[in-house]
């Protein structure tokens, strides 16, 4: 009986299944939960564990498209500035007399436009790397935000607007509910659709994909626009949590997001990694911060721990890669019969 499938997927074994990086992340997450519960008597109750998600899920929405971007061997470092700009636009339009619903729509539109511009520049000028393009727009978007609001803060939103950042569906924070919905949708898109397959193909070999009829440019444009759109969603939650906004909100968010994606095992070399890894990484970073915060460890300590985790993650994912290569030398891979 032939155990190989047509597409060349290897045979499923439990051993392989458990040796995935994602299981490592599950272990880390469990140990963080154990650590948190043992060092703080306040951690392990449902309300705190659920409420904690309100503190770190805002930026997590950007992680989904960022996973896709990094699988395609691109990067977007302008998302933090996109958050700031869409948030400022929303606050300014609302204060200028626009109904809040329209202001929110304008926020989403601004984010999407920012993302679209990134995507357009990257697709149109292929000789420019995504780092340079998004570095430029990172400065540009932040600059526009400063120009609009000039070092001031804007707020005064209606009371119900705080529901986004502080509200509950039953006992579950609203942001967590929305996050789960997004997680399911994006995981399905990446792993179960042609669109997702194409993203992996672009990451493994962009040229070959182009020649085999994958609409590389269109896919990149869509994914970058999604990154901008999710940055606008982050802006809504962030603004709702603070009740007001300033041009300097969400600084360094891009790095937090990229760190979560890298910790999730998405290789910067492209073509590899799973959505579940990044989702686990979001909770690892979030609960680690929350746990250390519960025992009042100073802020710098958190940075050390997260930096260390990242180094481990990058080393381990590379290590895995090397071992695989060695094996290939020992037992040359068989060609697929089909």
């Amino acid at each position, binding site marked *: 009986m032939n155990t190989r499938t047509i597409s060349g997927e290897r045979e499923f074994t439990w051993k392989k299944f458990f*040796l995935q990086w994602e299981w*490592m992340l599950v*272990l*880390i997450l469990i*140990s*963080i939960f154990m*650590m948190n519960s*043992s*060092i*703080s*008597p*306040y*951690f392990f109750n449902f309300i*705190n564990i659920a*409420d*904690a998600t*309100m*503190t*770190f899920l805002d930026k997590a929405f950007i992680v989904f498209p960022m996973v896709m971007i990094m699988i395609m061997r691109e990067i977007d470092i302008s998302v933090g500035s996109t958050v700031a700009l869409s948030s400022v636009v929303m606050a300014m339009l609302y204060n200028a007399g626009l109904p809040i619903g329209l202001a929110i729509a304008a926020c989403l539109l601004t984010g999407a436009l920012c993302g679209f511009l990134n995507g357009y520049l990257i697709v149109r000028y292929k000789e420019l790397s995504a780092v340079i393009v998004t570095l430029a727009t990172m400065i540009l978007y932040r600059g526009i935000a400063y120009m609009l609001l000039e*070092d*001031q*803060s804007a*707020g005064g939103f209606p009371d119900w607007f*705080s529901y986004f*950042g*502080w509200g509950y569906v039953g006992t579950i924070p609203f942001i967590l509910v929305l996050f789960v919905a997004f997680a399911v949708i994006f995981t399905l898109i990446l792993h179960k659709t042609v669109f997702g397959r194409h993203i992996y193909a672009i990451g493994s070999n962009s040229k070959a994909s182009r020649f085999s009829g994958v609409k590389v440019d269109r896919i990149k444009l869509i994914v970058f626009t999604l990154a901008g759109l999710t940055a606008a969603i982050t802006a809504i939650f*962030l603004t*709702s*949590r*603070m*009740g*007001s906004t*300033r041009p*300097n*909100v*969400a*600084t360094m968010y891009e790095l937090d997001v990229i760190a979560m994606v890298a910790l999730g095992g998405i290789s910067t070399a492209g073509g590899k990694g799973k959505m579940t890894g990044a989702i686990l990484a979001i909770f690892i970073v979030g609960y680690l*911060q*929350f746990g*250390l*915060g*519960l*025992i*009042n*460890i*100073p*802020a*710098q*300590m958190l*940075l050390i*721990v997260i930096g*260390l*985790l990242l180094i*481990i993650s990058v*080393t*381990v994912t590379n*290590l*895995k890669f090397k*071992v695989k290569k060695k094996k290939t030398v020992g037992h040359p891979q068989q060609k697929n019969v089909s």
Partner: protein
Amino acid sequence: MKRFVNLGLLMSLLLVFLAACGSNQPAEGGDGKAKHAVVFKNTGNPYGEKEMEGFKNAIEDLGGEAILRAPDDPSVEDQVKIIEELISQQVDSIAVVANDYDGLEPALKKAMNKGIKVLSLDSAVNGDSRMVHVNQADPEAIGRTQIEAVSEMIDGKGQIAILSATSQASNQNLWIEWMKKELEKPEYKDIELVKVAYGDDLRDKSVSETEALLQSYPDLKAIVAPTTVGIAAAAKVITDKGLIGDVVVTGLGLPSEMAAYIENGATPWMYLWNPLDVGYLAGHASHSLVEGDITGEAGDKFKAGELGEYEIIEGEDGTEILLGDPFRFDKENIEEWKEIY
């Protein structure tokens, strides 16, 4: 297999490290002590450290447990996060030195809904998000005094600039408003305020903002920095560039940081209150709120240890406790004060 061993090793290293992080912390909870938290603007600010130390002294004198927190950047996002963590720890009171006047409102309201006593000190939050505010000095006096001082230093004539903290810092903004009002008086008609720059209470940004001011306004006569980080940065730039005597720096500074500049003449004199006392007063106010001795209403009175008795008064937005008048530091007294804070 080798990979698995490697993973295991890394994992256990990580666990050991994390366990080490945890074990440094004193065991907490269950000892029945009241827990009072103070949240400063950011870490690495000597003024803030003194303020938190004063808070801690008061709380420990009263037999409570003090929790001192500050984000690494002066941002509202991180202060919201810390407040959420404090709510989860079921502290009895939270005292904040806010990075934004309105931005902490939802977080602090959540805390108050859970029965936590909330007050602000130094840099206020709006009247709806606190029970009382501990004010280091009358904002009007702080603002007007600094303009009087700078006018005397430059003989009432020339361009001046203000180097502030962040553009949202509520206390600085209030003082700057009073400075502008003072400048409207006829005796200051020859003084021109050319710019309000924001150094964000970060040393490097304050230095570069000062350099930018000097470049954009070559005739600048004085820089007023109503923030301890800003004044030290400005005085350092003036000293390094050899501009002592051409451009004077004054404002609010920490004696220990500013002693060198007061001695070399970059800053003829400056003002401040004692941050230890601000924290100490806030500590006593937290304790009295938790004990139910005061509710934060105007007219409430409480004892603040060695500082004596204080009365809560009605402020512009919400109630306040006033510490006292700003204190002048100059060549005569700096020697004695620089050892203290």
